[in-house]
């Protein structure tokens, strides 16, 4: 997309990234980056001797949408809101599930097909909390985090996706 009249705003300039936030007391780590996500980093951020369960979710980019071939995907964000929302999501999960650590990382810019766009690492004393919290955090991110995906298709055209249109199994939500 071309920008008319004005220089690239900071939130769209990869040079202003990565943008991170760390809450030491709750062991929460947040990352927005234009670089590839490194799962081992996020796992090591949350794990500790007290944690017996460590889950990792990686969301990776798909090459089709409703049968149309996707040539390229890219993401943009608005960190003043995005980091605030991710913080609320992580804090709520820590509180609800008594987690020992949460790391949420989202990649921005072009993400080649098959590579990770989101990584969520969760550590807890026992496995049930870590599994559940991981899923809840992901669903909350998809619903609320101020990040937008643009799909460009092999047959031409591009579309901005909206998560509200799809459920966790990729099915189209029908307005009720």
């Amino acid at each position, binding site marked *: 997309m071309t920008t008319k009249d004005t220089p690239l705003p900071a939130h769209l300039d990869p040079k202003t990234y990565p943008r991170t936030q760390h809450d030491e007391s709750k062991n929460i780590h947040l990352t927005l980056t234009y670089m590839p996500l490194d799962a081992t980093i996020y796992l090591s951020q949350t794990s500790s001797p007290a944690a017996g369960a460590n889950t990792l979710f990686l969301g990776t980019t798909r090459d089709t949408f409703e049968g149309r071939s996707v040539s390229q995907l890219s993401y943009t964000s608005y960190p*003043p809101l995005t980091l605030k929302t991710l913080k609320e999501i992580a804090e709520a999960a820590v509180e609800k599930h008594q987690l020992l650590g949460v790391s949420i990382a989202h990649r921005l810019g072009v993400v080649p097909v098959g590579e990770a766009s989101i990584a969520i690492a969760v550590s807890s004393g026992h496995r049930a909390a870590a599994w559940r919290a991981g899923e809840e955090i992901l669903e909350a*991110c998809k619903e609320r985090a101020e990040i937008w*995906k643009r799909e460009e298709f092999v047959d031409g055209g591009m579309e901005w996706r909206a*998560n509200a249109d799809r459920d966790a199994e990729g099915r189209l939500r029908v307005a009720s």
Partner: protein
Amino acid sequence: MATQTFTIHYFASASSYTGKNTETLPAPLKLSLLFSELESRYPGIEEKVLGSCGVSLDGEYVDVTPAEEKGGDAEGERVIEVGSEVAIIPPVSSG
């Protein structure tokens, strides 16, 4: 040319519709007049885009509904001040 302005950022469908990522508009402007201001610059945007969007003002979500539509009175209505940062937030699609 107005020298007193605020900054407005557009994302996703809002940036496609306006053809811009960001611009400056004359300030101060009543928050309740934001959508009609945008509609006058980008005809059709209110129905096609803004209806499903949130709005943030200096990092906080705000309600742009005119006070009279909410049954309240117009006094104390928020104003977008000079130098403020507004963002149009379409439905999100992370993950």
